[in-house]
């Protein structure tokens, strides 16, 4: 009980010291009788001396706001001037690998669509091009190719 009171008292004393110090009404560390408190008060003084209170004057605040707005405007202009992702993607002159990728995907798609499917029981099925499962496989493959392209362009 006594220890708790003592701890609370130290908490209050240090908090009061901080309050006085911030208000600029400070004497040197007051708690010389208590070594721990004395050390903590010295730490606070050191902090306060190193970071003396500053006030941002009106001119500086305004100047910072002007700079902020100029930067926002610049960013908005850059954003507006930038072509959209899809436009950049299908700009085949500056992005020839996309053209190659689309061509490769088309070839793969055609090959897969035209492959006759094989029955799991072993009977080959002739004349059944364009089966549904192959179409899904083709779309899946194209999807994988696009994902690879997407991953590689982000590096």
């Amino acid at each position: 009980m006594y220890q708790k009171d003592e701890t609370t008292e130290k908490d209050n004393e240090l908090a009061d010291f901080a309050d006085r110090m911030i208000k600029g009404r400070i004497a040197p560390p007051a708690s010389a009788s208590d070594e721990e408190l004395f050390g903590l008060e010295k730490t606070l003084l050191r902090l306060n001396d190193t970071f003396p209170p500053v006030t941002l004057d009106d001119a500086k605040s305004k100047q910072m706001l002007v700079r902020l707005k100029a930067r926002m405007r610049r960013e908005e202009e850059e954003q507006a001037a930038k072509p959209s992702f899809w436009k950049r993607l299908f700009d085949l002159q500056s992005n020839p690998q996309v053209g190659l990728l689309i061509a490769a995907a088309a070839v793969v798609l055609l090959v897969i669509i035209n492959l006759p499917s094989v029955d799991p029981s072993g009977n080959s099925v002739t004349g059944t091009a364009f089966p549904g499962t192959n179409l899904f496989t083709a779309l899946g493959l194209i999807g994988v190719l696009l994902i690879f392209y997407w991953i590689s362009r982000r590096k």
Partner: protein
Amino acid sequence: MTTNYMQNTLIPLQDTSDEILIQKYMDGSKEAFDVLYHRHLPKVYKRVRYVVPENDVEDVTQEIFIAALKSLSSFRGDAKFGTWLRTLTNHKVAEFYRRRTRKQEPRLAPLSDAVAQVTGSTSQSLEERIFLQRALQNLPENYREIILLRFAEDMQFNEIAELTNQNLEATKSLFRRAVTALRNHLEK
């Protein structure tokens, strides 16, 4: 007529709550953001000043407000705007140090290097400042936070208690533990 219009639209903005200012900004009022900016700039600036090298304080402060502007639409008002901005500030400060580390510029560069970059302050006070900033950065978040709330933001202990949902006694106790930890870091 114009004067009345200005009185009706501009002067009340100064007395308007943050949340209403945000709403006005979302509705297209640029002045609303200006008021919000001037209202919160001093606190953000002072907080950044405690944890970021002197040369970078303005830039980091600007980054914070740019991020705030860009994400104001996502502010739903679950917390106070000041609390939201404080979280954003801490996030941006952490990002500043991450970016420095990525640029192969160690976060804890030799003091002499840091001192050499800055002019205007005496090297001794600058070294002390960097030393204290490092100690603050190395504190656990709740310790650093209470010191910054009291010193950088000049909040009273009862206000801090209210903000952190603690009683006054617990807040002062946390403050003493925080200062003890800071002293221990400085003595290392």
